């Protein structure tokens, strides 16, 4: 098995694991973490494409690699914004539930 195929399979497995965590975890920070796993899995697939595209004297294709670097930065920016929103949700509602029924209970509990 060649290294780039192996890395591609790892990327696919990471996307699957992250997707499962994204659906199955109730806690939004855990969902965010799982989403980051999906992201890095996709980046790894990009990395495989870059490695396979070795040409012009380089051991890799620089264009997908540069896109991955841009992608990592943008993913971080989105994560940071999501964290700020989650914290705001906690300040506003007293918990971090994304469940509409739970937030219904939360409204009952609030002294108006």
């Amino acid at each position, binding site marked *: 098995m060649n*290294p*780039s*195929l*192996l890395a*591609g*399979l790892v990327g*696919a497995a*990471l*996307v*699957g*694991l*992250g*997707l499962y*965590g994204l*659906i*199955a*975890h*109730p806690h939004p*920070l*855990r969902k965010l*973490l*799982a989403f*980051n*796993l999906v992201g*890095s899995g996709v*980046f790894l697939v990009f*990395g*495989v*494409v*870059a490695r396979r*595209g070795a040409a*012009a004297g*380089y051991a*890799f*294709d620089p*264009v997908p690699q*540069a*896109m*991955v*670097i*841009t992608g*990592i*930065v*943008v993913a*971080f920016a989105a*994560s*940071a*914004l999501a964290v*700020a929103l*989650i*914290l*705001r949700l*906690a300040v506003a*509602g*007293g*918990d*971090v*539930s994304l*469940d509409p029924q*739970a937030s219904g209970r939360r409204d009952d509990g609030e002294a108006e």
Partner: protein
Amino acid sequence: MSVLPLLDIGLALLVVAVAAWTIAARNLFASVLGYVAYGLLLALVWVRLHAPDIALTEAAVGGGVTGVLLVTAGKRLDALKATRSGAGPGLRERIVAGALSALVAGALAFVVASLPTPAPSLAPQAAAAAAGPGAGLGNPITAVLISYRAFDTMLEKIVLLLAVLGIWSVGADDAWGSAPAPLRRARPDGAMVLLARILAPIGALIGVHIFWVGADAPGGAFQGGALLAAMWMVAMMARLLEAPRIGSRALRLALISGPAVFLTVGLAGNILAGSFFAFPPGFAKPLILFIEAFMVLSVAVALPMMVAGPPDGESKP
């Protein structure tokens, strides 16, 4: 029988196992610890894929700064006593979710296994950009980021700026203009202060080095900036430095300097070299380093402000 394939397979299994741990862990702290370990291992995988630039970025952002962002967020949630997160899905939903995830992963694995041979490549264009008139950049990735796909890179810096603005705007109205909450409230231990005092300056030097060699070797503006950002946060965690007020003019200028300089040089290219983001022949390399220096500044300031979060109004200006 070579050892290398065995090493690769061991590394691959380890990465997947640690990723599974971050999903399976019971508490948030353990899960984030797993994520940092995962970022580190992924950096090794990137080196095996001949991508040291991405390895640095992944270690800096994936392992380091994202981990710190999440652990800081978890700490703040604890302080709010907001730990209740509602029940997770039931067993049946979990099985369906598992099946769906397995299906997606399987499809992606199939696609990866059936990628076309010979692989399409934009490497010749990147090589042309790297060797372009007066450029002479040894690192083709820097050439792609600043020259071949300059527009993307500039927009990425604007995304960073927008994220900072978005984060600031979720703060309370009357807190506007004040400083974000400190990364640590308690007085730090002596050992932590000592570590920060030694680590931060050395780390900042290494950050500048990685930016500087980025034109010809792995490294570059973002990686250097991320290291500088991490060192600023180290100093903030030891309370050697305090987070600036978000109303501070110096902070705001530093934040916009990267995209502003990039855009100005891009527009100047319209006049001097005939097209947007074209660099005049003979000046490409110094111009690229000039743009990158301001990008380093923007990144180094934007990342800690994102981790620090919205202004909180409590800290005195």
